[in-house]
């Protein structure tokens, strides 16, 4: 087990380096000259050229790209992620302050979508072929295709504007006011989890139907176990492994979607920060945002891999 984990960690290192190279290059590939942007249009071309050369040198932009990259990487590793071009606040500090909110949103949406998918999927499987099953499956077919901002808009209209159960704005951090925090994250979490829930519901239903047809279920029934026990202890448990696998594959989509949901609900998380940075072309902030998301994604995938190998020993001893 430990050997497997160590192996996976080692494999992550080249990917991590590639991620940093890509982020570094992407920002440098942006057309336009950052130094020129900084000084604007000076009246005297000779003076302007002199200032430009000076600034270029002081930023280290006159050095070859690999040298610039290594310097930049050194800063990143030591926690100096630069400061925002607009607010002049350090990027890393801002991100550390905001990341917990996004993480909370992520966990909440994953949890709600898994719970919804399990309940609805089991109901649909039990009532297979009925009107309920058909209706639920039609609903999930739509749900898979519903973008986060659309679901969010509908939720805001129904629950905030019409019913008045939630305020669309007014966020509180969990350490300040836990109740209000959960309340302000519920609708965003649902918007983010909805499409995932729809996808997973179909999978839960399909897996349960397949599992119910197998011999060990017949055995369990034959020995006189009640339906509920057969469903929870035997069918559901076996049906859930592929469901968890696919839920793990959805982490990337959730990370992308959280950016949109956060900006829709004006949550002060990573996503809003990133989108603001993108809209204003605040390069140090964009770098920090993309880096953190990519590294978070890498770690999440690693965690999922390790979780499977723990759940299913065949993976541990299989390939590699």
């Amino acid at each position, binding site marked *: 087990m430990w050997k497997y984990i160590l192996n996976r960690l080692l494999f992550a290192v080249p990917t991590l380096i*590639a*991620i940093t190279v890509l982020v570094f290059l992407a920002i440098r590939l942006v057309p336009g000259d950052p130094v020129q942007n900084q000084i604007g249009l000076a009246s005297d071309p000779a003076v302007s050229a002199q200032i430009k050369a000076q600034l270029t040198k002081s930023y280290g932009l006159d050095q070859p790209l690999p040298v610039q990259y290594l310097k930049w990487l050194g800063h990143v590793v030591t926690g100096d992620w630069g400061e925002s071009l607009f607010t002049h606040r350090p990027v890393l500090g801002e991100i550390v302050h905001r990341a917990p909110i996004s993480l909370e949103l992520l966990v909440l949406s994953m949890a709600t979508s898994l719970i919804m998918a399990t309940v609805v999927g089991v109901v649909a499987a039990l009532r297979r072929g009925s009107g309920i099953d058909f209706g639920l499956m039609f609903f999930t077919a739509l749900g898979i295709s519903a*973008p986060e901002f*659309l679901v969010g808009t509908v939720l805001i209209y129904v629950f905030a*504007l019409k019913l008045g159960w939630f305020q669309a704005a007014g966020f509180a951090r969990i350490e300040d006011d836990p109740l209000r925090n959960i309340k302000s994250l519920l609708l965003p979490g649902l918007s983010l989890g909805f499409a995932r829930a729809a996808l997973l519901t179909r999978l839960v239903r399909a897996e349960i139907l397949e599992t119910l047809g197998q011999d060990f279920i017949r055995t369990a029934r034959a020995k006189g176990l009640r339906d509920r026990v057969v469903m929870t202890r035997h069918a559901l448990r076996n049906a859930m492994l592929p469901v968890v696998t696919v839920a793990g594959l959805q982490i990337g989509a959730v990370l992308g979607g959280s*950016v*949109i949901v956060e900006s829709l609900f004006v949550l002060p998380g990573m996503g809003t920060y990133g989108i603001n940075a*993108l809209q204003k072309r605040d390069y140090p902030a964009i770098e920090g945002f993309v880096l953190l998301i990519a590294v978070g994604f890498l770690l999440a995938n690693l965690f999922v891999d390790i979780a499977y190998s723990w759940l299913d020993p065949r993976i541990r001893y299989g390939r590699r």
Partner: protein
Amino acid sequence: MEGVSARVLVGDGAGGGTLYHRRRGMAAWRRLRRSPPTLIGGAVVLALVLIALFAPWVSPYDPTKLQVGLPLSGPSAGHLLGTDHLGRDILSRVIFGTRISLLVGGSAMLFAVSLGVPLGLLSGYFGGWLDMMIMRAVDVMLSFPFLIFALLLIVVLGNGTSNVVWALGVGSIPLFARLVRGTVLSLKGREFVQAAQVVGASHRRLIFRHILPNALSPIIVTASLLVAVAVIAEASLSYLGLGTQPPTPSWGYDLNKALSYLEVNLWMALGPGIAILLTATAFNMLGDGLRDLTDPRLRNK
């Protein structure tokens, strides 16, 4: 795109030999008739394409013309979906929005297919260092969530409709490269391919006559699912103000604008919202339906 890979995995149809069958036309049609999702999805896609093509003739007003009606009025005989905050006809904007949506979805898909499929073929067929290089590049691209990768490319390329196509297209290459590589690897081990190799078929003949035709159905299925993803991603990027720029009608951007007027005219949000949902659902149904049709494990149900 994470959605696509998940669903390709859920119903992993290697689909060997289905599209390349004798009398395939007849057999395919007979099966197609028994698959309502495929038919409905296909019909809606066809209708959307026609609407996009004939938008100027179908739409009642010029979508960018201001004050064709009283701003923010509800549905009426003159404006079936009402008007937006600038007095533009919402129905006309929704109709013209079809163009951007399908153009971006379709072009991004074609771009990803035309680069991803050859890369997957090379990688799977020849293996070795070529395979390793292609797959490492794919791994790096996949180490970013799809939308974040697209956002990063948008930063480099700039906002705008055509840049969204590049961003989504490039971001989807790994999907096809991996899919095709996997299919090729499994086909390479099959008897009919090995038999062809033994009788001395050239690489070109092996790839184009034996392997590619049998890899087509998963490619088509994934392509259809990808269009749905790209349509949603385009709407999302335009929603964030990074995609299609006003005044060009785009569902995502219009929905964003509608947020401020939800209580005044809900149709401003419903129009583009339903359009996005309908388009993505149609391509998803088509893709899922085709997958079920071509998956040998599901065929005889």
